[in-house]
């Protein structure tokens, strides 16, 4: 495990040097991860040794790219990483004896999830950014409560499905009530806030856990059908969704079309699909080897940034340009290793709640990566969510660290049981 952390810090240092950042950044983060590592050694000595180093590496890659795109953002992101590690430590310390007591509070988590999702819709503290009402601001602090709501929802689903999996598998309608209410409420809030990416994510997590718990493919099929019907209805009803789909299917037009942003006629690549198209150009420009860190092109010849939201939604296209196919593939491999370790944790866990919790957290992590990177790569329509651990954004970093902490807690218990059995 030490090797992993060491490798991570060397990686940070090397990256920082190339992008001309001060070595203090690297030293500071080495110290930070050393603290995180020591806390983990103390609290969860049997935990999976890969999870934390990979998380550290991903954070380092993200931080380096954010620094390259704008040093002031990197400082803020650095603070959020500190907070993230602190929360990580708190979760480990708080739940090191038995995280399974969370199961007893499942309805609290369910309601909490909905409350967190509802928060941005409240007057005064709610805030709309880029057409999506996802933010809460208190004083100078901005936060996306939905990020933590996601984890609360996974805890609820894991606990509830563990308890009711037999009856649900038998198809007793009564038992579906609380599940549907909590889940339906969450979906409703998501559509109300206009955050389609998260809606897709939650639905995916829900389906995955439902399948894992009941082993009934039919449920998944029915839910998929419901989703498709809902998606079709939504497509008809909301121009917002129609635009997204059109931009995805036909990002380039040869003639001018109506541009809803300006109300004038324009080529779609200069209007609605501008971000997607320019992001693809950014990826394509990277080619096999990339331009090299710090050598990418993100501004016009007059100094304007070409792609908006570059360090959040489009950080993958920035990374793909500078690191090329080699770097981008390596990054995706890191996600893949993390996800495989996460499922390994889930497989080795001793009880149903732990299994579902680990699977939910891991699948959510993988699906979130797929939704944003797939959107950037034009595999699916683009919806703005963050790339876990890499994108700029405090809420995302903190919640990702909670995911890491959760997986480590589960794996610690499972491995400790195996050790004990010996």
């Amino acid at each position: 495990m030490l090797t992993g952390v060491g490798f991570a810090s060397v990686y940070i240092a090397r990256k920082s040097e190339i992008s001309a950042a001060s070595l203090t950044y690297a030293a500071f983060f080495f110290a930070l991860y050393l603290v995180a590592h020591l806390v983990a050694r103390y609290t969860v000595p049997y935990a999976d040794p890969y999870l934390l180093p990979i998380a550290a590496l991903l954070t380092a890659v993200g931080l380096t790219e954010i620094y390259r795109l704008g040093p002031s953002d990197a400082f803020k992101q650095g603070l959020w990483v500190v907070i993230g590690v602190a929360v990580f430590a708190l979760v480990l310390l708080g739940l090191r004896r038995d995280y399974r007591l969370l199961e007893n509070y499942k309805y609290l988590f369910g309601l909490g999830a909905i409350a967190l999702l509802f928060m941005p819709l409240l007057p005064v503290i709610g805030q709309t950014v880029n057409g999506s009402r996802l933010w809460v601001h208190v004083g100078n602090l901005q936060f996306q409560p939905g990020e933590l709501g996601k984890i609360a929802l996974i805890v609820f689903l894991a606990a509830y499905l563990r308890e009711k999996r037999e009856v649900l598998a038998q198809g007793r309608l009564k038992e579906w009530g609380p599940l549907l209410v909590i889940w339906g409420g969450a979906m409703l809030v998501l559509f109300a806030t206009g955050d389609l990416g998260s809606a897709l994510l939650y639905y995916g997590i829900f389906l995955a856990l439902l399948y894992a718990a009941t082993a009934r493919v039919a449920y998944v099929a029915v839910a998929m059908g419901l989703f498709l019907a809902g998606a079709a209805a939504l497509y008809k009803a909301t121009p917002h969704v129609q635009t997204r789909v059109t931009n995805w299917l036909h990002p380039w037009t040869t003639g001018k079309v109506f541009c809803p942003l300006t109300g004038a006629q324009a080529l779609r690549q200069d209007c609605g699909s501008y971000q997607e198209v320019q992001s693809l150009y950014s990826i394509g420009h990277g080619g096999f080897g990339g331009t090299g860190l710090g050598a990418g092109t993100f501004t016009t010849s007059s100094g304007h940034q070409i792609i908006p939201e570059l360090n959040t939604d489009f950080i993958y296209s920035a990374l793909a340009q500078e690191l090329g196919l080699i770097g981008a593939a390596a990054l995706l491999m890191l996600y893949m290793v993390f996800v495989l370790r996460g499922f390994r944790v889930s497989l080795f866990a001793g009880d149903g709640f732990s299994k579902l919790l680990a699977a939910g957290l891991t699948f959510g992590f993988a699906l979130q990566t797929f939704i944003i990177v797939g959107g950037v790569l034009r595999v699916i329509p683009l919806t703005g969510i963050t790339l876990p651990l890499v994108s700029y954004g405090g809420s995302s970093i903190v919640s990702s660290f909670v995911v890491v902490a959760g997986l480590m807690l589960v794996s610690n218990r499972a491995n400790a049981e195996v050790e004990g059995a010996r």
Partner: protein
Amino acid sequence: MNRQLNRLAIVAVLLLVALVVATTYWQTWASAGLQDRQDNAIQRVVQFTIARGLIESNGKQAIFAANKQRKVSGQTLYFRRYPQHTLAAQTIGYSTASRSQAGLERSMNDYLTGSNTNLSNAFKRALDKLGGGTVKGNSLLLTLRPGAQRIAQQQLGNRCGAVVAMNARTGAVYVMASTPSYDPNQIQANYAKVLKIRGDCGDGSALLNRTTNGLFTPGSTFKIVTAAAALDTGAFTPTSTFEDPGYCTEYGQKVYNAGNPDQNGPEAFGRVNLATGFQHSINSVFCNIGKQLGAKTILDYAKRFGFYKTPPLETPADERSPSGLYRVTKTGSHLDDPKDPGSVDPGRLAFGQTTMLATPLQMAMVAATVANGGVVPKPYVVQKVLAPDGSTVRDTHPANLGRAIKPQTAADLTAMMVAAVQGGTGTAAQIPGIQVAGKTGTAETSVAHVYTAWFVCFAPADNPQVAVAVVLEKQANGFGGAVAAPIAKLVLQALLHG
């Protein structure tokens, strides 16, 4: 539950694999296509991170295109500047921020940006990139002679026209003057203004490269081709005699000689031979030759001189036009190679009227072919492509496009062209101490007494060095011998003495 979890893990991994596949697609397979798209804002900037190669004339007398540096958000960008302004502007072209390019800047872009494919080149480029250094493009050394080029453009002045001068042996192009011209430095900021530039002829864009893309009725300069066919086929000799009543009868109608500027009505020479007919550019003589040879033979000889093919040159192919008969249809003007040459009026074709159109470059090639003993030299304007370290990337070796006529035919034509300058229509091109061989052309336009004036020549006649073609559009009462020949003379002098 583990079976389901295993399956979920597979789904999750497949989702991530899909991302790797998609990334691979965009970064390898689709990468080139994305880079070529006009709206690619990154490529618009990236092209300026490359220090484009210089475009200069051979011998470094003039730099046509250079760079000025500017720092933009930490990146050094290289913007193009054109120190020679309007000089040879249409041939040099431009390369601007909005990603539009023209001329050699467009056709030689791969060399100028150093992206011409070659393994060691690609390797060097990759090293430059990794080292964080600037990618430097290759420089072009042109065969253009700035002094003669400047004289040609000054002489054309505000008239619409063109001058092409080339080495009669090698095909190296010395002058490519096209007026009205424009300043390539203005393309980025004042494109609308550039579009509004008009010469004396009233229409026609300054952006048009008239030397290679301007199509003009060749008029009597085409008599060189007709005479070449007449002599080379053996159907006529320079001493073949003709009776000139001032007109030639074709399809039962009279085709008159050109009007004599001093008299009212066409000239009539009486009994003349072919050489005299050429010297004084007598239409009736050539009309009769045309009738006897037929349009097919004349067109066949024209093709031997390069007509009906886009002349080779390093400028973009769509900035060059083939010469030949043109037919106007609803969709525009099209090159017309008639299946039945009998439908073409052979008498008028013989003296370059009907629907025959030629570029100045093509007519310079005709003169150069006669000068070169009957072999058509292959024109080129880029002598060398030089790498940033000074090594030669590409060197142009003179080549030819095949033999058009026999050496004896070329010798006979030379003698007739010398006579035309010594005591015929082209006396204004005489240079003391140097024998000039030339042919005038005064083509009728749709407006009476407004002509397209030509002069096509080479010198020295006994040891040909330079071939020149001059054309002036819409000249009121402007005869080739009077308005075009003096320009050709000055360009010849500049090239032969310079």
